[in-house]
């Protein structure tokens, strides 16, 4: 058995080989599918440009992630605390999931402009539901005997929430956050596609329009690496914070 990082390296090599193989086998021109070597060269040559746009996208994603986690966390607690809120808001939440997030991007750009705001909003919207629902489900699954014990001890609902239900549900919150780390970049990129003058999504569209497919691929790969690193970092952080016991 290969260890985690070894198999990651091996499958990356396999992927690159397949990619180069396809380019050679079909003799594809560089404006259709550039090979990995060319993309790597472009990535190096345009590193300053790519870094600048990565920084923008990363900022959008991180702010969106923090806001989405806070909003989702608070919503889940509110829903779990109040049956009234559940009956009023939950159907609305489920209905909102029937609206494709992509369709909202132009409206958000119209309302919030071409800057960071509309991209952060997209990231927040796209992660809000997974964070809320996985934390909410965990909050509703508290061991009923713990709740009984707490009631016999004379605890009020708010204190039961704070000292038992929330700590017991933190692993659920953590798994929501790990999903969010993968979804948040999607939100930010869609936002950049619809209207932006900065960011990796914008850079990809720009490169595509100028037939600089190598640059587009370079931006795409940087985005993918960023997303993977974010997912791992959020996973580690969540484990450290929430999965004690």
């Amino acid at each position: 058995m290969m260890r985690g990082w070894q198999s990651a390296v091996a499958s990356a090599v396999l992927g690159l080989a397949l990619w180069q193989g396809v380019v050679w086998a079909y003799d594809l021109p560089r404006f259709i599918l550039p090979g990995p070597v060319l993309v790597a060269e472009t990535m190096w040559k345009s590193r300053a440009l790519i870094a600048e746009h990565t920084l923008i996208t990363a900022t959008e994603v991180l702010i969106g992630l923090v806001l989405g986690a806070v909003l989702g966390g608070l919503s889940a607690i509110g829903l779990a605390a109040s049956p009234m809120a559940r009956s009023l808001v939950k159907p609305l939440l489920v209905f909102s999931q029937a609206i494709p997030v992509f369709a909202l991007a132009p409206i958000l750009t119209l309302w919030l402009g071409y800057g960071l705001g509309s991209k952060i909003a997209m990231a927040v919207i796209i992660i809000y539901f997974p964070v809320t629902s996985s934390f909410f489900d965990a909050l509703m699954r508290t061991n009923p005997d713990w709740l009984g014990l707490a009631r016999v001890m004379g605890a009020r609902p708010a204190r039961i929430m704070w000292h038992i239900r929330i700590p017991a549900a933190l692993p659920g919150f953590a798994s929501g956050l790990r999903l969010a780390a993968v979804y948040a970049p999607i939100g930010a990129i869609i936002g950049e596609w619809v209207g932006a003058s900065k960011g990796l999504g914008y850079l990809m569209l720009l490169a595509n329009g100028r037939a600089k497919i190598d640059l587009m691929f370079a931006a795409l790969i940087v985005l993918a690496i960023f997303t993977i690193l974010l997912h791992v970092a959020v996973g580690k952080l969540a484990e450290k914070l929430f999965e004690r016991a």
Partner: protein
Amino acid sequence: MTIAPALHLDGAASFDGVPVFAGVSLDVPAGQWTCLLGSSGVGKSTVLKLFAGLDAGVEFDGALGASDGPLAGQVALMAQDDLLLPWLSVTENVLLGARLRGTRPDHARAQSVLARVGLTDKADRRPGELSGGQRQRVALARTLMEDRPVVLLDEPFSALDARTRAQMQELTAEVLTGRTVLLVTHEPAEAARLGHSIKVMTETGLIDVTPPPGDIPRPVDDPAVLRVQTSLLAQLREDANARD
């Protein structure tokens, strides 16, 4: 601790329209151990839940309470599952009541309570690091920390191995002396060891059984205890036959 009250329950309970028990009249004498013995599904845990005020979904038709007024705030509960919170240390679990009520935790008393159940050296451990018997001793310490005159025990020893169970029965009997204790169990041996009074709960109501002589915890191998244990078992089997 205030003077322990007597408890009484008189009535019928149903869940979702299905009767759980009918026509039960139970008196739990003050300051003593009462064992409520019965097979699974006979509604003995429901009796305990009613006293604990955890009767969610149960419709109770009748009267229940303590001899000195309302039960709320007078009761501590200990169940088969130790219900320790895995993210808190042993000491923090023992102090859970104060944490949940937002009152000042009495660390000195928590220490003495832990010493009483023999867990001083485990005070900073997490429940996950303890054995089943040790965890149940933490649950007992948490129950003692609550210092309530009425203690409800819902088969607290049934998940333990025989030796640990015997030790826990002795320790619990010792530390809960003077309180009104209602122990729900399906173990005839346990009832014969621990009951100042013993009631067998059957389909048709409660049967009073004369307990063996002597104070509790009675020796496991005492002939009188064994005799009562045998007759309790016979009664349970009779009830089961009547239901089949």
